[in-house]
């Protein structure tokens, strides 16, 4: 396992949102967190990435503790974070956003190579490199946020509802991109409301309800569990 989250209690101020959440992500694995609104799914990602300090519990990457570290420190350990919304520097150009994605790279040649690799993988952005990021469409912004997170070649990518507010075309494009990255060995932990698309992509699913773990297994096991399926996916899900 590359990521271990063990009995985390966390929240905002004195308000406890996560009540003993545990999960793991294996190398090269796509793991998903699903659950009803307000379950604490995004809070899990924010706690792993250091935006929130857990009240108690343990978070480890390759066995080394992350809890208590800042986001910029965790990012340097090989974890990328893609926010649900507002993850770009909208008044910077596409190119400047990618340059900022490589902020931690001191070697300018390495940064240039990394940006060129992004342009190779996402030709759309090469053509629009001088365009303000805020003027891109919602789907393009989401893909740019993902592309920017790839500059530092993370071991693990945390994604918070990558399909939120996107058209079906862009949802497909986003998940094709994620699938391509995963085939190259990148592990992902994805919070998703769109259970239809995530259950096709994920190898492991964690269901969160009211800040506690409600299920931990494969998508097939989830779909085979009548109670869980009815509670979190609706009785029509199969």
């Amino acid at each position, binding site marked *: 396992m590359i990521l271990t989250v063990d009995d985390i209690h966390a929240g905002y101020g004195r308000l406890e949102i996560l009540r003993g959440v545990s999960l793991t992500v294996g190398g090269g694995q796509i793991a998903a967190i699903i659950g009803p609104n307000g379950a604490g799914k995004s809070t899990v990602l924010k706690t792993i990435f250091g935006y929130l300090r857990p009240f108690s519990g343990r978070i480890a990457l390759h066995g080394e503790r992350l809890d208590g570290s*800042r986001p910029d420190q965790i990012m340097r350990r090989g974890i990328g974070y893609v*926010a649900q919304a507002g*993850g770009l520097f909208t008044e910077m150009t596409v190119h400047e956003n990618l340059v900022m994605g490589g902020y931690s790279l001191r070697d300018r040649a390495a940064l240039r190579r990394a940006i060129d690799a992004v342009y190779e993988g996402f030709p759309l952005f090469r053509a629009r490199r001088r365009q303000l990021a805020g003027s891109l469409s919602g789907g393009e912004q989401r893909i740019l946020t993902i592309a920017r997170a790839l500059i530092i070649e993370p071991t693990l990518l945390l994604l918070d509802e990558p399909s939120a507010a996107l058209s079906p075309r862009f949802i497909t494009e986003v998940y094709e991109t994620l699938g391509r990255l995963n085939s190259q060995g990148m592990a992902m932990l994805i919070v998703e409301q769109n259970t239809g698309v995530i259950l096709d992509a994920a190898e492991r699913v964690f269901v969160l309800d009211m800040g506690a773990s409600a299920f931990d297994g494969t998508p097939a096991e989830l779909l085979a569990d009548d109670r869980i399926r009815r509670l979190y996916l609706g009785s029509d899900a199969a």
Partner: protein
Amino acid sequence: MLESIVEFLILGIVLGGIYALFSTGLSLIFGVLDVINVAHGEFFAIGGYLAFAAIVLLHLPAAAGVAAGAVGAFLLGLAVYPLLIAPLKRRFGRQPQGSLFLVLTLGLSTFLQSSLLAIGGGDYLRVPPYLRGIVDLGFTGISNQRLLILAVAVLALVALFLFLYGHRQGMAIRAVAMNPDAAQAVGVNLTMIFTLAIALGTGLAGLAGALIAPLFNVYPAVGFTFTVKAFAITILGGLGNLAGALLASFLVAIVETMSVLVIPSEWQNVIAFVIMIAVLLVRPQGLLGRAPAG
């Protein structure tokens, strides 16, 4: 009449350079930290005092005095975030109310002014001109001192913009101002950037204070009028917008200087606020600020 207009226009441009140094620094701090630095005028005064100490007491060259003013204010500014603002954030939460920071920097302003009074006394300290002589334009003359002020101010502002748009840490400052969470996600250390942004702001104020010391003399409250005016300029330009602060600085300075041609000079200091109110009534976000959504 035309000669008077041109003369005052030139004086206004020179004054605009000083306002720009002062206000850009204030706007930078607000844009990055959402903190209104009421003590900004005291760093302006500190710049003047350091220039006085270097040039008059230590008999160093003028350039050394100006550098001392800028660097000294920058170094002092490095202490503001870690010693004052960060502890307040830790105590009250990630982003406590802006009024708390207002009171904090008001306290810092009082502390610094009292310290300057205790160390330097209340007398007006005279700093000799850095350059003597004038450039003769025929109908009027502009002192080399004023031209030097404008030249250094322009160079400093160009350097600032080159830093913000071309240097890794400058881009990080802009990134934090736009989106602190995203900045952290790409590896930016917020504490370092907050510290640097404040120090850059106070350094610009110190440079302005050192540059203008021969014209305004040096005393503890010399920065007060500038601070109050800089608030108006910063709001007029659009809070946190550096280009707006720059534009507003020259606009206010030119109108202010040229206003003496038509109104009594006693009303000169009111000009900045009249312009600010007039513009905000029509454009509440300021000259270059972003219009509110909806």
